[in-house]
């Protein structure tokens, strides 16, 4: 494998030395482009009592191409599907090489705080969310209790 670009080394060092509050990202021993990530549910969101696990992979073309990020913990959210795939503009069409691992993870945390059922990935969840928001939020709380690690 080609040597790791300086930028990735710098980003990894900073993630460890100056971590984002509520977010951890640890590179895998055998593959420094693969990170194990945890994100705490934002306060005042239905996810607030839980810690969610994700995986993040930096493709060969990073930073010309966005990191690949996926939820490993089951989560009830209109923009995250049952495979953990995330519908977020900065991971797709609005990616920019000026963004970094930390900014991407912050965007995902912000997505937890403000679900957007009008741009859904998990259609059934989005429908529930639009039809009966209160019930959907309650279900998101329940799933957090069931599947996420307690804070």
């Amino acid at each position, binding site marked *: 494998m080609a040597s790791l670009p*300086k930028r990735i080394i710098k980003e990894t060092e900073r993630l460890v030395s100056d971590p984002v509050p509520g977010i951890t990202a640890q590179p895998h021993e055998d593959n420094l482009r693969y990170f194990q990530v945890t994100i705490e549910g934002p306060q005042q969101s239905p996810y607030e009592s839980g810690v969610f696990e994700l995986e993040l992979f930096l493709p060969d073309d990073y*930073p*010309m*191409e966005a990191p690949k990020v996926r939820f490993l913990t089951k989560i009830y959210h209109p923009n995250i599907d049952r495979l953990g795939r995330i519908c977020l503009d900065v991971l797709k069409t609005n*990616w*920019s*090489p*000026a963004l970094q691992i930390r900014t991407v993870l912050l965007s995902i945390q912000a997505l937890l705080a403000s679900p957007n059922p009008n741009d859904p990935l998990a259609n059934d969840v989005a429908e529930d969310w639009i039809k009966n928001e209160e019930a959907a939020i309650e279900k998101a709380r329940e799933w957090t209790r069931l599947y996420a690690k307690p804070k």
Partner: protein
Amino acid sequence: MKIEAKKIHCVFAWSWDIPGDCQDGTQGPSEEDVCGICRVSYNGTCPNCKFPGDDCPLVIGDCNHNFHVHCIQQWLDTPTAKGLCPMCRQLFSLKRGVSINEAQVEKFAHLLMKSRPTALTTDEEDIMMDQEFLVR
């Protein structure tokens, strides 16, 4: 006392000539100023080059965002870029009247054209429409 110089070591320092309003400081780029894409100093190289300087030049955008030529070129070549500056998402073009940009002008004009194929086709359609109208 008589001093005899036996040997002279000349040491040179260089840095890119970035006009004052394109950076925060007033005296040349500092080590803090890094390419917004690879995060290496302006005076360093992009990840693929070994030697800084003319082989791996710097360009200054109209939006005052600076990048190693190779970094911004590689970005503008991707479909995701849509011709936009990674920092401010304005259409990326070279700042005029900046000496270090001069050698790159043609290359970037070409890249800008490539980033707007959709705009071009609409123009062509418009022209064809106009011609149809003329025929009628």
